């Protein structure tokens, strides 16, 4: 027990931290800032792993799921370039603060073994969107404690490397009423217009947004309706009515030209779809109660050999399992990944992996 260290902190992100460097982010990508908070730095090697970042704020990333495709982007603060066709959105996002965090690290078992445990509650995530052309401020989204996460990390040194295992559990609570997607804080950039041939055309959101990748997609006719299983809630029929490739038709069949080649969406009254593209997620007017409330369990192990071989300098094998379900008990599926990586004597790295997942539900589609 002598080697165990217990740390606990409330709101650990505000004290004894060096100031961040100023970064002006004009892109649509997140800005990652180096971790400087002492609680996260101390014994960080115990909890670090090649499996990826820990949930809930290890490494401060100015990023938000709800803001990753928001006009204006997800940096701490940035402004979109002004142009006649683009509205100058300004998005101000604060990183979700860690409200409380407990950490236990040490070497309690014996030589070569390390254990680390961490539990944390992450606070509300604030995002403010401003549109200077219409309203100076169009509100802020906030939510109750957003994430609750726990991490368990084990590591055992072996002769030529180590064996590590890590399990994380995350519960995510998101209040849709305060979610920016629930009520777009600003009007769509364009209203569907009716062309002379009777087709309604809606301009997509500015092309520089991530949503514009949809502009190059095209739906094709379905040979047969996809046979999808009924949802867990049952009593609903999923039908495929798809004429595809027939731009110019109104009605459901006209959706075949829903994402034509260059960012024009063609269907009557499809503003909701534009919202989908803008946010990167589907807009559901009837989706109420929660936007994404789920529990996620992720476990993985890694076997790493650091002893140079005849051809290799390092070998690493990883297995990871991910399971998710929403708070209604609806299983959101699981997935299994297996990966193997080799660093050759020539310092070339080869990585190969296999993964798979059975059919699963998307909770954002199954609430009504």
């Amino acid at each position, binding site marked *: 027990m002598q080697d165990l260290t217990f740390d606990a902190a409330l709101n650990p992100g505000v004290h004894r931290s060096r100031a961040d460097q100023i970064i002006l982010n004009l892109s649509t990508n997140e800005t990652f800032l180096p971790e400087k908070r002492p609680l996260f730095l101390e014994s960080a090697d115990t909890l670090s792993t090649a*499996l990826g970042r820990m949930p809930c704020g290890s490494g401060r990333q100015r990023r938000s799921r709800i803001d990753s*495709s928001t006009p204006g982007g997800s940096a701490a603060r940035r402004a979109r370039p002004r142009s006649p066709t683009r509205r100058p959105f300004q998005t101000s996002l604060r990183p979700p603060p860690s409200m409380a965090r407990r950490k236990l690290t040490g070497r309690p078992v014996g030589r070569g073994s390390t254990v680390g445990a961490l539990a944390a509650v992450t606070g509300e995530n604030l995002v403010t969107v401003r549109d200077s052309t219409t309203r100076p401020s169009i509100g802020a989204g906030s939510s109750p404690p957003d994430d609750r996460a726990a991490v368990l990390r084990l590591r055992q040194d072996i002769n030529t490397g180590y064996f590590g295992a890590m399990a994380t559990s995350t519960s995510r609570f998101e209040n849709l009423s305060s979610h920016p997607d629930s009520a777009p804080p600003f009007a769509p950039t364009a209203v569907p217009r009716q062309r002379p041939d009777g087709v309604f055309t809606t301009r997509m959101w500015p092309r520089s947004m*991530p*949503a514009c*990748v*949809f502009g*190059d*997609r*095209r*739906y*094709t*006719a*379905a040979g047969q309706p*996809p*046979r*999808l*299983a009924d*949802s867990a809630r049952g009593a*609903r029929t999923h*039908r*495929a*009515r*798809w004429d*595809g490739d027939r731009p110019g038709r109104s009605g*459901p069949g006209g*959706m075949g030209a*829903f994402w034509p080649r260059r960012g024009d969406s063609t*269907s009557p009254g*499809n503003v909701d*779809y534009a919202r989908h593209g803008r946010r*990167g*997620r*589907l807009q559901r007017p009837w989706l109420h109660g929660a936007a994404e409330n789920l529990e996620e369990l992720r476990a993985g192990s890694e076997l790493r050999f650091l002893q140079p071989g005849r051809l290799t300098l390092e070998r690493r094998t*990883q297995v*990871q399992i*991910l399971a998710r379900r929403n708070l209604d008990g609806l299983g959101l*599926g699981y*997935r299994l*990944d*297996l*990966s193997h*990586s080799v660093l050759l004597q*020539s*310092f*070339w*790295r*080869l*990585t*190969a*992996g*296999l*993964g*798979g*997942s059975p*059919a*699963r*539900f*998307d909770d954002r*589609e*199954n609430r009504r």
Partner: protein
Amino acid sequence: MIGRIGDRGGLAPGATAALERAGFAAGHVQVQSDFRKSVTAQVTTDVQIHTGRVGGAAVTTTAGVTIHALPQLELATELGLTYTSREPRYVGNIGSDYVFGRQLAKRRQRRSAGQLHFYAAVVVADVRPAVSGFGSL
């Protein structure tokens, strides 16, 4: 790389827009050349095949070259290709019914970037402490 197999991001085909996401089997291959050299290359390929009667497949390939022309100058270019077909996607609803279609998506993207690292020092004042003979030896 583990955990990302078959996961092409929130805006990529297969994410966020399916009522029931199809099961899939995925493969991932990545080759990265010697990162110590002045010119390094990396190729990554992801293949995803949807299982069951739904069908569909997706391939994503990314190839990039990074050139360290000078110790402080880095030039990088990357080409990405995405192709997916027959994946069922939600496109709307009629009353209580959902309407699905099959998607054909082709995407080609290029990215070029350059980074010049420099350090500039600004001397505001040259302050030299006066040496006095305090203390004793």
